[in-house]
Each structure stands twice: as structure tokens, then as C-alpha cells.
């Protein structure tokens, strides 16, 4: 659905994208993670056609992004809604621009508002909504027309747990219907909850790509050993179970043991260590 190959985007001397390649299939949720300035938002801007890449190619549903805008749903990082207009007016505008009209538009507005717990807010000015409601409203404008490609750039920043849960639930359902989802975030547990594949980006390119299990497989896990005197020993090792066996064989008798496999946080930290 989304295919980008060798994208380069320069801002002066800085390369925001430097050979960025990424594909996202129908029905896949791809979590795009990386430091601030790694190129995530620039990539989203290129995919939406807001920014033109200096080199490389990107297609959405087999055509250039500018020809596929009616098939793209975008929730940018920054809130971008008409604050003096009601939520219904905002949804009517973005739905209408995506080609929805009449009964189909009204139904889409009602359905999306229901899924995102926004029904009571439809006729209130967006400027009077709470932060969480605005976040959901922004997502609603992206999801309204059932896009083939959904681009969500840090959609849950500042969102409360209820907002986050409603959003993640709808994203999973949208992907289940065949929509490709590109999801940038710094909240890694969300990617676990979404069952997302991962694309780790740094310095304007994707440096690792795959499902969570595969990417985590090469990372060390953690072994916390609490000794009888209360001292806690923290061991990071590729095989915590084997390390524990060695300790026991050496005569160590811990009062408690905690074995933890590598997490996305570890993956992110290892990325930070290797790319900063």
C-alpha cells in the first residue's frame, strides 16, 4: 500500500531524510519509532505530498501521493482543526473534501463519533473541547472516510487513558478492515498493544525493520537477583535463564529472582546508544 524507496530531503545542509526506505502492507500497523529529528515527521509530510522529496520515490496504492490523497487519512502531530467551528463542521469539511456526501457523510460522522466517544461533542466548537477530545477529534477527521492508508503522527500525545484506549481500539479495527497504518510514537507500550510491526529510524533512514519478536530477539534480557542480605544484583545478558543456572551452580542462593525479556524500551535505548 505504501512504498518508499531511497527518499532524500535536505533542509539547507541538514538531511532530514537520507535514503529513507519503507513499505507498509494492507492491514499492517507499522510503528515508526526514533529520536526527535530522526525523520519521522518529514517522512509523513512526504507521503502526504506536503513536502517534495529531493530524491527517491514514494507511492501510495501504486500512484504518487498527490494522486492518492483521497485514499490517505492524516492526523498530523500538531492539532489542525478549525477551533471556532463545531466538531460536526470540521468533520463535514474533511469528509466532504475526501469525497463523502449526503447520507454517506452523515453516517460516517455519526459512526466515527460513536467509536471515538465524541457523540456529545459534535455540535460544540472544537476550541471548547478538552485536550483529549481534541486529540480524538483530530483522529476522527483522519478516519472518517475509511482511508486505505492511515498516517498517525504521535496521535496520543497528551491524551488521557480513555482517549488512548478509544484511539487504539479504532486503529486496530481500521487495520483489520485492510487499511495500512503508519503510526509514529514515543509511547512504545502502545505499539505492543497494537501488535505493530516496527520500523526504527535514525539520521533520516530506517535502520531496522520487522516484527517485534524478531527485533527483540537479538537484545539482551534482564536478570534481577535479590540476595539473602537484601542486596539486589542486576544482570543484563543475552540468556538470563542460563545466567541464573550458572549462579545456582556456583552456590548462590537468592531470596528472589526476576527474569525479564528484552522490551521495546531496551530496543529504543540500544538504538539511542548506537545512533546518537
Amino acid at each position: 500500500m505504501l512504498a518508499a524507496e531511497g527518499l532524500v530531503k535536505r533542509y539547507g545542509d541538514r538531511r532530514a531524510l537520507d535514503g529513507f526506505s519503507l513499505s507498509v502492507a494492507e492491514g499492517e500497523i507499522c510503528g515508526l519509532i526514533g529520536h526527535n529529528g530522526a525523520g519521522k515527521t518529514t517522512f509523513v509530510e512526504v507521503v502526504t505530498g506536503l513536502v517534495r522529496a529531493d530524491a527517491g520515490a514514494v507511492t501510495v496504492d501504486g500512484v504518487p501521493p498527490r494522486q492518492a490523497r483521497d485514499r490517505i487519512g492524516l492526523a498530523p502531530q500538531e492539532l489542525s482543526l478549525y477551533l471556532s467551528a463545531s466538531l460536526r463542521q470540521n468533520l463535514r469539511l474533511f469528509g466532504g473534501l475526501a469525497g463523502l456526501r449526503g447520507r454517506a457523510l452523515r453516517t460516517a460522522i455519526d459512526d466515527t463519533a460513536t467509536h471515538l466517544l465524541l457523540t456529545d461533542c459534535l455540535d460544540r466548537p472544537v476550541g471548547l473541547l478538552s485536550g483529549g477530545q481534541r486529540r480524538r477529534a483530530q483522529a476522527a477527521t483522519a478516519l472518517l472516510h475509511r482511508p486505505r492508508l492511515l498516517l498517525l503522527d504521535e496521535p496520543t500525545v497528551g491524551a488521557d487513558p480513555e482517549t488512548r484506549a478509544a484511539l487504539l481500539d479504532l486503529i486496530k479495527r481500521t487495520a483489520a478492515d485492510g487499511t495500512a497504518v503508519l503510526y509514529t510514537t514515543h509511547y512504545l507500550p502502545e505499539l505492543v498493544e497494537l501488535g505493530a510491526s516496527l520500523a526504527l529510524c535514525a539520521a533520516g533512514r530506517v535502520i531496522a525493520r520487522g516484527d517485534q519478536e524478531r527485533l527483540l530477539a537479538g537484545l539482551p534480557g534482564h536478570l534481577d537477583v535479590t540476595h539473602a542480605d537484601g542486596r539486589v544484583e542486576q544482570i543484563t545478558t543475552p540468556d538470563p535463564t542460563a545466567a541464573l543456572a550458572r549462579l545456582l551452580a556456583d552456590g548462590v542462593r537468592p531470596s528472589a529472582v526476576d527474569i525479564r525479556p528484552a522490551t521495546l524500551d531496551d530496543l529504543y535505548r540500544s538504538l539511542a546508544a548506537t545512533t546518537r
Partner: protein
Amino acid sequence: MNASIVLIRHNFALLLGEPGPVLSRIGMPLVLITALRPLYSAALGSAGLIQAVTGMLVLFSMLGLSIIAGGILTERSWHTLDRLRATPARPVHILVGKAVPFGAVLLAQQAAIVAYAMIAFGLRAPRPDLLLVAGVSWALTLLCAGAALATVVRSHGELSAVNDLGGMFFTVLGGAMVPLALLPGWLRAAAPASPGYWALHGLGSALAGDPAGTFRDAAVLLAVAAALGVFAAWRIARGWGRNRLL
């Protein structure tokens, strides 16, 4: 329903949601025409009424430019302009979507001023068609100027300063407040540099039933409008990237 119609409807709704600025710019010139007409008549005789009407029309329509520029600048600060650029709407749709409601406001303002002067003071307009040509060409110029201005300023404060100073400067230079005949010679020589000059002339020619003068002045205004419109469309199509507003 194409993108322009969706945007026109949306922008009309936004305007109607905050009618205060529009109503004040339609109501105030009527008050000032009433108050200043005796002054202009004393200075210019029978031409005083036309000077009062066309002068106030040009002055307040130039001040109305802030509604247009402010509307577009607000979209920049809300990030909705970039959001619109990511939809199937093309830059020309976005501009038309903004221009039609604002153009309607400008034409309503002109119609209200002329109608009031006709009813209250007996202003005569022998060729309404010429008045329409002059009014539409001036409205298009203001629309394009407002759009262009909104794409280059970086805050509402900056817009307010540029609009107030620029509006007053070009209004005075064009002869809308003080009749050209009473301006110093060097200022009279510079007057054609102001679009207000051509608007004032065009409206005066239309009220006098002079087709040649009306069309010449309209052509100048449309050329200015085209240049500003092309600039605004280019600026909107290019976007602002990471250059944030103040």
C-alpha cells in the same frame, strides 16, 4: 460537489459564526458618509457626494482587507491550511473557497454603501453595469492583496500593523480621504502607485457613466490582482514547512 463548493460552504459558516467584524465594516462607512458629506460638499460642490461615497467605500474596503488576511492567517496558525493541502483540494480550490465568501462580503459592503447613498442622499448611478465592473475589479484586487499579505506576515500583530498603516497610506495616497485636487503636487504625482487611486477613479467613472474610464481603471486593478493572486497561490502551494508563526 467539488472541493471548492465544500470549502466555500465551510468558509461561509466560519464567517457567519463571527459576524461582528463584517457588520462593523459595513455599518461604519454609512455613519461616516452621513457625517462627512457636508464637509466634502463644501469643498467640492456637487462632486462632494461622489467623493464622500467612493472615498469611504475605498477606505473601508481597504480596512476590510484585514478580514480576508486575518481569515487566512488564522488558518495558518491553526495549521488547517497545511491540513487542507494534504487533502484532495488543490491550491486553487483552497483560494476559491476563501475568495468567494470574502468576495461576497466586499461586494455586500459596496452595495450597502452605494444603496444607502442613493436612498439617503439621492446619489445617481446611470450605468449599474459599470458600477458592477468597478466594484468587482476592486473586490478582486482586495481579495488577492489580502491573500498575499496573509502568506507573508508572521502574526496577527504584524498583520494588524501592516494593514492599518498600509491601508491608511494607500487610502490617503489614492485620494480617498482628501480629494486629489487638494493634495500637494508631489503626492498627486505618486497617487497612481496606490491601487486605491484606480479604485476611486474607476468608481467615479462608473458613477459618471463613463465606460472607457471604468474599463481602463478596472484593467489596471485586474493586473494588480493577477500579480498578487499568482504570488498568493504560489506561496500557499509551497507551504511553510517548519517555519512557524510567531
